[in-house]
């Protein structure tokens, strides 16, 4: 039982990281119809920023430095994402396949640039040692860092929810996901919402990068791509464009993966992709997705 608790919380923690990547993907796809293959590159950029800050700029291993590095990596991810939208995606509106292709190309370029700058070996990050302490829950021991991931992802979920529900731009995004042509016809400039969605998606991904660096104890050029595949799976299972659906799916994917992998190494990854196939074949719109019009 105790091992189950440990694994379950670790799984939810991993799911929290998937959520940080997947929430942006989901909104971008829901609003713009762009499948963003460069999202992993945003995450990796954030991860390198966090690594650089905590090992080169403020290598004191304090929680304050770590907190600053989280915000910094979020901003790096956001800036990268907005630049992508402004320089590449914007010029290809209404060419959905080409938009996806451009992000595929950018993903390749980014990974090889990281490879050229930082080398292929993972760079070891040294987060504050407090994060690696364990707490006891019943008879089980769980690493504190798991709770950090869950908390941050929970805050992002809450912020997303409040933004979508109570702000004007959130209203435009929700309406745009529902029916973009109608929103445009009403004279609202959806393109600002596009840029904004990239900003928040990039921020969450960069934040996820800093946390993933802690989770994986380091950052390599393909860190983001490793997360991207499972984030895609999360988005599709949850339903494109639905943030609550993405959150539920993230927990399902993370826990399934960790639990099954504990018993047979690697089988968890296999089960998760089969889960995706099963969900798509029985419920193509995902758990909470809307039926396509």
């Amino acid at each position, binding site marked *: 039982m105790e091992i189950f608790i440990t694994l379950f919380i670790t799984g939810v923690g991993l799911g929290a990281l998937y959520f940080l990547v997947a929430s942006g993907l989901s909104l971008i796809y829901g609003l713009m119809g762009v499948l963003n293959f460069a999202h992993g590159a945003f995450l990796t950029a954030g991860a390198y920023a966090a690594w650089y800050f905590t090992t080169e700029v403020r290598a004191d291993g304090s929680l304050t430095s770590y907190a600053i590095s989280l915000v910094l990596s979020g901003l790096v991810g956001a800036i990268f994402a907005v630049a992508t939208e402004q320089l590449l995606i914007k010029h290809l509106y209404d060419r959905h396949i080409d938009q996806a292709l451009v992000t595929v190309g950018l993903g390749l370029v980014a990974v090889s640039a990281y490879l050229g700058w930082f080398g292929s070996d993972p760079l070891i990050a040294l987060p504050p040692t407090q994060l690696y302490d364990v707490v006891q829950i019943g008879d089980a021991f769980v690493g504190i860092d798991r709770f950090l991931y869950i908390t941050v992802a929970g805050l992002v979920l809450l912020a997303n929810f409040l933004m979508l529900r109570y702000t004007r731009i959130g209203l435009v995004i929700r309406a745009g996901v529902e029916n973009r042509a109608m929103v445009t016809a009403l004279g609202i400039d959806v393109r600002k919402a596009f840029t904004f969605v990239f900003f928040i998606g990039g921020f969450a991904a960069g934040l996820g990068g800093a946390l993933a660096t802690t989770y994986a104890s380091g950052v390599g050029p393909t860190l983001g791509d490793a997360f991207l595949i499972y984030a895609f*799976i999360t988005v*599709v299972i949850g339903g494109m464009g639905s943030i609550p659906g993405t959150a539920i799916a993230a927990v399902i994917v993370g826990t399934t993966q960790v639990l099954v992998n504990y018993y047979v190494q690697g089988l968890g990854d296999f089960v998760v992709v089969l889960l995706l196939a099963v969900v*798509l074949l029985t419920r193509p719109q995902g758990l909470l997705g809307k039926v396509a019009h």
Partner: protein
Amino acid sequence: MLIAGFGAFTPLIDEPGLQQTFAVAFLFGGLALTYDLLLGFTGLLSFGHALFYAAGAYGAAFAMARWDWGIIPAGIFALFFAFLVALFTGTAALRVKGIAFAMVTLAFAEAGHVIVTLNLWGLSEGDKTLQLNFDSVPDFFLGVANTRNLYLLALITLAIIYLAVWWLTQSSVGRVWQALRENEERVSVLGLRPFSFKLIAFVLAGVMAAFVGVVAVVVTNNANPVMASTQTTISLLLMVILGGIATRWGAVIGGLIYVVLSQRLTTLDTQGALAGLPEWIGGPMSEPAFILGVIFILVVMFSPGGIAGALYRLRLKIASFK
């Protein structure tokens, strides 16, 4: 014509390393062509094509290594195996369309990748490659001195794939594929079942990819997990888009350019061509994928239709000039 040209070139390319590079390039040209059959001619965006390439390679390598079969029965076994895999995954994946189809195929391919990488059920050698059983292939395909024969083998493979794709796309079934790409609803109104035709395209492209996979085992002497990775499918996508979609020879050119560039650009760095550049730009420049990625982005943004499209527009311009 192009293939005959490369056949005529054979005596000129006499360095084994170069012959090997071209052999691999021909195979990827053929593989890109089978991908174009789906993407360009039927309008199916699959992210799982690597699965069938790997099924062919691993099927053949497995039968040769574990059962000591000869290359011919092992190859037939691999094609049959890939046929079954394609039939199963295609039947499931084609129930959904568009991005969902892309995702389901990605999932199936990732499942295959996991199986070979982690050596589930002892089917592969995990991260290590599954080596070619040298007793299973004729001697004239072995050893550095015989690289020329591998070059020819790869060239013939490319020619077979090219002719098969040419014949298929000209056939009445091929015309239905292209009609599906343009307007699926209209096809079904005409009384044809889109599902059956798409499944035929999916399975045929899969079996042809497996054929390339079998030959790849002979040419590269192993089956490895990279063959099954999404990275392989993405590079096929790049090749087809770079060369020009739905033109047949565009995919071949794209494959050739991609492989030759990615192998030759590496030597650019070792020859010191990048020595004068500052580190922040020289570092990425030494990665072939960086330059290929940049070219790819530029092609998508400024030259839709790839190389074939650009040449086509050039020809129109010259024609209107007269």
